[in-house]
């Protein structure tokens, strides 16, 4: 109570002081007429604080009209541009549409005096633009530009496009009816048409154009068409073109301007192409012509490779998009009018034929050059000689100071223009990138005429025809594959020709390529925070994670799952990437739960593969398909799973044949026996083996032939290799074929087989399960040494120093190299398993001879490390072995 009293006292005191200081009372007179004259000067001077204070607690009617013309205070504020007071009055309920004696609203006055901010505020408070004053004019009549500027104001964004369009239209009509200059530009040279276009206001643009508005650029040379394209306003563009036919070519030429957003331009062209039967072929033919010129420029060696290449591919992309839309009226599908003649739809590709013809001639030329070099090997010098020669030339041209203008390209060899005589080698290196980019464009054009998933026979024929040249290109510069030969990923029949080159490329590059292509069809794969539809959330029960996940995933569609996954656990709030990660983690762990009998552990206990007896679970094949889906989905969304499969199962996923060494993962003893058969002459041993095996099928032994009539074919020294292969396939593949097939069926719904081929089994493990963390300290603690080595040996010290300096990836390679697995077992290196029980990581000495590389015996986890003379040599040899020799075992 005391505080309240004190507070009131303070308020009164401060009022008193203020009153004294300003020499007037701070209370508003009771009567409106007196009050309004007190307030008016303050409003005129925009003394909003004073006005606010006075209005506080007063009973003054803010809409009180006074004086000869019966204006309200809001009129005064609008007239004088007193924005703060204006807002204050509006907040206190002043009527924005109050008309004075001449019928003018505050908006009229603001517009007449160019009070831009006031107009904005009045519009915000729903001032009606359509009220006419006694002269029959709306407020907008007074100043068109201020209104249009207001419309650009972001503060007015809450108006919505329709309202804006309406205001604009009203304005323009008033303006025109009152005989104003339709082309009057504002200070920056922008005309009404310019404004209409910058907001994509089709109707307004239409009226302006039909009443003869000129097509003028602003002072910066930006034209109304530029604005339409920037905003992607197809309808407005269409109107501009209707009125100014030449703009059509300008629009087409815009495809060469890399400052314009491709998506917007495409949107515009797609819209325009659908407006009439004639537009579709006309746009495409023009695009094809532009693309052809661009392609020819790209093939000119002095042009900028980068700019021309990007430009060509952009145009061709747009071209293909528009083409795929089809003509506007479907009935004219196959034969439609072009220049009055009935011509097929494919006619639009005709201009491009010139470019494809040049491409073909270029490749033929290069093929002849290659042949000439081959026949005349004396003229082609070795690589290093060429390089030094070229370097000299480079210096020479630099020194001469008049080096021809040559763009900087990826390959330094391409940069160099030859002196006097252009050698065949140089022609190839200078044109390879350019030709490859044109080939990419050619493929795009060929495939957009084909149904989804089919490769154009013409393109296949093309690749076959120029096989040797294309191979020559990619051998010289493998980057070409990733940059331009995307077609390989879509055409398995062509892929096989280049596979060996692709496999030789760094894992990282192939990974990028893989994802680039995998996600190419997804419209907003770059959108991280996609709004999630409540129905698309996978609601998972933690206590029945496997079953509920299976249900949810099968209910959803593949397309939705590709777009994004949102998971919520039943009864929990959490959502987002973290939950998705957790879901993949625990679900993958659940898939290998022995209770489901889907997967069995390998001999060393760290990896899994399908259980040949999984049929105890009657629904097992469905579950395998589900497991495949989950793995595919995880890979698709770059999520890691918590399962490690056997080497052989990764091979199954990749479609690579298994080898007898893979048997060791399920039966190391048996693998040793197979090895022994291969290593020894079995002719005189009397093994009496036939091409058959006895298998235990739920307790009953059955003899299964390895090939037709196998039970009566003896295994001999000559056919033992075949026997080993067949027996391997039986153990590793045939026994679990249905499971593998079901798994792959699920996996391939998200990951096309042609794409996964880019990787080998080690890389696939890395992609699915991620890079394992390797604790070097633990590794050192759990390592043994034999045949002369011990921890004190300098070479061992060197070895660990090298290991510490390796990257995580290289350490994994080393582990893989020695143990055959990239995994550290659960519990650390102490639990490393060998062929027969625990087997620690071992380093053994080997006598050093020059160039000898380290070798390993994976079944006993032994690294055979030659006694290298220095740490440098050790490091060098070890890395060579890791990078080249981590697969392709030779049994030592």
């Amino acid at each position, binding site marked *: 109570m005391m505080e309240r009293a004190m507070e009131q006292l303070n308020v009164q005191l401060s009022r008193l002081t203020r009153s004294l200081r300003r020499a007037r009372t701070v209370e508003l007179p009771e009567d409106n007429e007196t009050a309004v004259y007190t307030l008016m000067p303050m409003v005129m001077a925009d003394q909003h604080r004073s006005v606010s204070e006075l209005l506080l607690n007063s009973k003054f009617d803010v809409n009180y009209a006074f004086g000869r013309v019966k204006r309200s205070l809001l009129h005064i504020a609008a007239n004088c541009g007193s924005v703060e007071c204006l807002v204050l009055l509006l907040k206190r309920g002043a009527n924005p549409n109050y008309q004075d004696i001449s019928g003018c609203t505050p908006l009229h006055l603001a517009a007449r005096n160019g009070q831009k901010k006031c107009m904005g505020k009045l519009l915000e408070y729903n001032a009606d633009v359509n009220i006419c004053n006694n002269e029959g004019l709306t407020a907008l009549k007074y100043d068109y530009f201020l209104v249009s500027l207001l419309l650009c104001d972001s503060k007015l964004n809450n108006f919505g496009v329709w309202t804006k369009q309406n205001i604009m239209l009203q304005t323009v009509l008033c303006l025109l009816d009152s*005989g104003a200059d339709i082309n009057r530009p504002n200070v920056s040279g922008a005309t009404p048409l310019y404004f209409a276009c910058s907001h994509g206001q089709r109707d307004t643009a239409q009226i302006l154009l*039909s*009443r*003869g508005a000129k*097509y003028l*650029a602003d002072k*910066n*040379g*930006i034209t109304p068409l530029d604005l339409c394209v920037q905003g992607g306003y197809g309808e407005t563009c269409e109107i501009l073109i*209707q*009125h*100014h*036919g*030449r*703009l059509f*070519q*300008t629009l087409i*030429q815009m495809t060469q*301007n890399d400052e314009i957003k491709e998506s917007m331009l495409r949107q515009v062209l797609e819209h325009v192409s659908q407006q009439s039967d004639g537009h579709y072929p006309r746009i495409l*033919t023009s695009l094809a*012509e532009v693309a052809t*010129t661009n392609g*020819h*420029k790209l*093939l*000119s*060696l*002095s*042009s900028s490779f980068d700019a021309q290449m990007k430009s060509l591919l952009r145009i061709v992309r747009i071209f293909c998009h528009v083409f795929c839309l089809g003509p506007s009226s479907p009935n004219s599908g196959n034969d439609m009018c072009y*220049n009055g003649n009935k011509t097929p739809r494919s006619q639009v590709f*005709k*201009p491009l034929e*010139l470019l494809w*013809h*040049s491409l*073909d*001639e*270029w490749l*033929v*030329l290069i093929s*002849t*050059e290659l042949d000439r070099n081959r026949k005349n090997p004396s003229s082609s010098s070795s690589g290093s000689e060429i390089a030094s020669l070229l370097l000299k030339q480079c210096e020479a041209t630099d020194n*001469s100071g*008049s080096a*021809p203008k040559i763009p900087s390209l990826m390959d330094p060899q391409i940069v160099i*223009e*030859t*002196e*006097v*005589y*252009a050698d065949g080698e*140089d*022609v190839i290196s*200078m*044109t390879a990138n350019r030709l490859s980019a044109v080939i990419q464009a050619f493929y795009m054009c060929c495939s957009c005429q084909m149904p989804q998933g089919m490769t154009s026979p013409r393109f296949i024929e093309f690749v076959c025809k120029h096989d040797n040249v294309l191979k020559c290109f990619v051998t010289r510069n493998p980057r070409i594959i990733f940059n331009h030969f995307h077609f390989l990923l879509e055409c398995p029949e062509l892929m096989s020709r280049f596979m060996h080159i692709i496999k030789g490329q760094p894992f990282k590059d192939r990974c990028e390529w893989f994802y680039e292509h995998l996600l190419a069809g997804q419209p907003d794969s770059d959108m991280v925070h996609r709004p999630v539809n409540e129905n698309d959330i996978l609601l998972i029960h933690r206590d029945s994670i496997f079953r509920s996940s299976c249900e949810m995933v099968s209910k959803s569609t593949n397309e939705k799952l590709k777009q994004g996954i949102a998971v919520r656990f039943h009864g929990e709030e959490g959502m987002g990437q973290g939950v998705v990660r957790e879901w993949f983690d625990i679900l993958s762990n659940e898939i290998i739960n022995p209770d489901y009998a889907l997967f069995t552990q390998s001999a060393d206990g760290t990896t899994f593969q399908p259980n040949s007896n999984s049929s105890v679970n009657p629904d097992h094949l469905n579950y395998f398909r589900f497991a495949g889906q989950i793995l595919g989905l995880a890979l698709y969304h770059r999520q890691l799973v918590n399962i490690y499969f056997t080497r052989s199962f990764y091979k199954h996923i990749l479609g690579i044949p298994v080898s007898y060494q893979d048997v060791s993962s399920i039966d190391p003893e048996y693998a040793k026996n197979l090895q022994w058969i291969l290593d020894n002459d079995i002719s005189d041993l009397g093994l009496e083996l036939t091409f058959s095996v006895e298998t235990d099928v739920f307790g009953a032994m059955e003899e299964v032939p390895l090939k037709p009539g196998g039970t009566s074919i003896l295994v001999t020294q000559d056919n033992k290799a075949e026997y080993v292969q067949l027996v391997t396939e039986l153990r590793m593949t045939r026994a679990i074929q249905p499971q593998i097939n079901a798994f792959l069926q699920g996996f391939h719904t998200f990951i096309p087989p042609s794409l996964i081929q880019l990787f080998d089994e080690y890389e696939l493990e890395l992609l699915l399960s991620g890079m394992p963390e390797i604790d070097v300290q633990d590794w050192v603690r759990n390592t043994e040494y034999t045949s002369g080595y011990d921890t004190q040996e300098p070479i061992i010290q060197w070895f660990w120093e090298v290991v510490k300096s390796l990257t995580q990836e290289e350490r994994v390679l080393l582990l893989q190299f020695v143990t055959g697995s990239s995994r550290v077992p659960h519990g650390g290196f102490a639990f490393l398993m060998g062929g027969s029980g625990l087997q620690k990581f071992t380093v053994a000495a080997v006598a050093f001879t020059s160039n000898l590389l380290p070798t390993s015996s994976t079944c006993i986890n032994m690294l055979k490390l030659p006694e290298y003379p220095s740490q440098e040599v050790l490091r060098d040899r070890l890395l060579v072995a890791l990078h080249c020799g981590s697969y392709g075992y030779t049994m030592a």
Partner: protein
Amino acid sequence: MSETYDFLFKFLVIGSAGTGKSCLLHQFIENKFKQDSNHTIGVEFGSRVVNVGGKTVKLQIWDTAGQERFRSVTRSYYRGAAGALLVYDITSRETYNALTNWLTDARTLASPNIAIILCGNKKDLDADREVTFLEASRFAQENDLMFLETSALTGENVEEGFLKCARTILNKIDSGELDPERMGSGIQYGDASLRQLRQPRGTTTQNKQHCSC
């Protein structure tokens, strides 16, 4: 912003190896002589906007390799050319003798009514002349070609050569002999031609009514 022009013409520069085609183009575009020029590989490209008879014309010029081994590649650029500079070297009768072949190529592959100007290049090397002016001009007359002797070194007649050819094409457009709208004519309208554009039928009359106000 992009340059504006009324028309775009596609031009070719053809002729035997070493006659100075690239130097002519370089002189035309850069206004200087190209020292230590190499053999062109394939086809090179250059463009310049010129003013011909009150019209701005963008010349898109394809400079072809003269060497025989590039012949099939260069031929693939001929189609849709509106004009060509056929170049020989006045100090080399061999290059002059090859003209007939080049001419046949151009007329069959490009278009029968392609505007061709014959350029006897290296005019500055008059001392080593092997082909007389009279002889070449007679050849030009017989084959319905324009003719100039040029020097890429001094720049003499280089500009004239290109302009003369462009002018001929413009005249043909004015007389209606050439239709720029026809596909493969080697001619395109530029955006500057907007000013005197021919509006689509129907809207033209309407526009006029309102323009008068």
